[in-house]
């Protein structure tokens, strides 16, 4: 009788250990069962020191709904006098607070971010290079001809023809005058965001 009791205790212990191991294993990073099969990426290209608030909000909404990763991409122009692959610290100085600001907003909404800085002779060339070596399911761009936050009509037509993904062009609207930019301490590195109207 005592032996059967010991046996049962032994079986229960082994069962408990196995269960514990399986639970721990399932919690290890990269082994989550709820991880998406394919990587979903939403590209948000931008230039200058501001990004359209409308475009960012739309990209974040989509990314959250689809459990996708947001890929904000700062497009940098490299003058012809410099090699295309050269270091561009001045451009990086402009890009960093923006990427930090976007990441802060995305994280607050539970969206994963995988940022890029892409170089090109023009913004379109930088975008072309990005399309060549990155994969994404959607591109979100604001249709603003202001120059600071958007792309020209020609750029958008080109993007529609070239992008191997769904392109979401946001119609210019009153709220399009709101932008997200790095400001105050964020501009020099603390990543504070601000939304403002112009």
């Amino acid at each position, binding site marked *: 009788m005592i032996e059967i009791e010991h046996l049962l205790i032994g079986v229960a212990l082994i069962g408990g250990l196995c269960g514990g191991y399986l639970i*721990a294993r399932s919690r290890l*990073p990269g082994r989550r069962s709820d991880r998406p099969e394919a*990587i979903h990426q939403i590209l948000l290209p931008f230039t200058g020191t501001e990004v359209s608030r409308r475009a960012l909000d739309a990209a974040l909404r989509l990314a959250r709904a689809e459990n996708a*990763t947001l890929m904000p991409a700062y497009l*940098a122009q490299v*003058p012809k*006098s*410099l*090699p295309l*692959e*050269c*270091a*561009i*610290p*001045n*451009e*990086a*100085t402009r890009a*960093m607070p923006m*990427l*930090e600001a976007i*990441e*802060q907003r995305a*994280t*607050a909404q539970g969206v*994963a*971010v*995988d*940022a*890029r*800085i*892409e*170089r090109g002779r023009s913004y379109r060339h930088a975008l072309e290079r990005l399309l060549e*070596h990155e994969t994404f399911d959607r591109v979100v761009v604001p249709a603003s001809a202001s120059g600071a936050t958007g792309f020209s009509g020609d750029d958008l037509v080109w993007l529609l023809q070239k992008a191997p993904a769904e392109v979401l062009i946001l119609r210019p609207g009153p709220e399009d005058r709101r932008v997200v930019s790095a400001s105050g301490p964020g501009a*020099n*590195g603390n990543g504070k965001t601000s939304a403002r109207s112009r």
Partner: protein
Amino acid sequence: MNRGHYKIFLGMAAGVGKTYRMLQEGQTEAEAGRDVVIGYLEPHKREETSAQARGLEVVPRHHVQIRDVTVEEMDLVGLLDRDPDLALIDELAHTNPPGLAHQKRYEDIADVLGAGIDVFSTVNVQHLESLNDQVAELTGVRVRETVPDSVLGAADEVVLIDLTPEALIARLRAGKIYPGENIDAALNNFFRIENLAALREVSLRQVAEDVESKRLTFSQGESLGTREEGQLSADTPKAVGERLLALVRPQPSSQRLVRRAWRSAQRLGTDLDLLWVKPPGKPIEGEEERQVTALRQLASVLGATLLIEEHDDLVAAVARLVRERGSTYIMVGESEPPRGLARLREPLPQRLMRATPPGVDVRIVAHRGSKEAGQ
């Protein structure tokens, strides 16, 4: 035959007084009884410079016919035949016209030094190959005539001719650098205060690094002293220049760490290395490969160096790299909370501090998610 002694006068821009100082020191050497000649001088029609050259023997120039134009160049053969104790040769970055012995003047200088003749020469910082892109981006002006950094490294002495941007602009306005008709153009283009301030910083840093590398080479080459003393000299903290090492992994969260590290590097005015210690034998493929490419791209944009080390002991690999690269700061991302037996292990920052040379700081960059959660 012993190689001649090589002294370079380095400046941030034209007009700081490199040639003047070279001639001044040449005069002092001549007064001390040495046989000094001017191998090549470019006075740029500056009266003060021409005055400083008076009394020094000039080796006649070599005339080269290019189509309908005759240009005057340094006569290398004439200078070697003259065989002085010391030759003053201006503008070492100059490109020779076709038909001469060498393409570049610094190659002529190498021959002169090889003949046992001491050389004083001059160069501006933007001619240095490794700084050419940086200077072009800072100033918007690209210099075509470049020289390898090894030329500066090979010099026995590098003398920085320093001048504040304000003083240089005052010299320019006074017509001491360019003739009157060119002054406005110069002020509107290259000679802007922000350009000159940036160039001055680059020059000062360049000379500081040169001094430091010579100091370290000297201390490593010391054969005197005990083994402990030798060890002490190798471990001596650098007198000038910090170097930052950021430990990354091929995953998007590392980008924040890289951004932080880069900003710190910018503030310290130092170089940044990114290190991923990769488990041995594991191929880089799939998403990991994509992330490594992204990190490489980011490093290239920032002018940082991405290092990938295969090692099964992270701390040992980092400690070796820190010694090799002379890192003074290590930046690490916040680790995941330890689980199970890992809780008994000493945290990574502490292990790093124990394994690296004294004086190396370790900084932890908080994970964005945990920071947000804590607010």
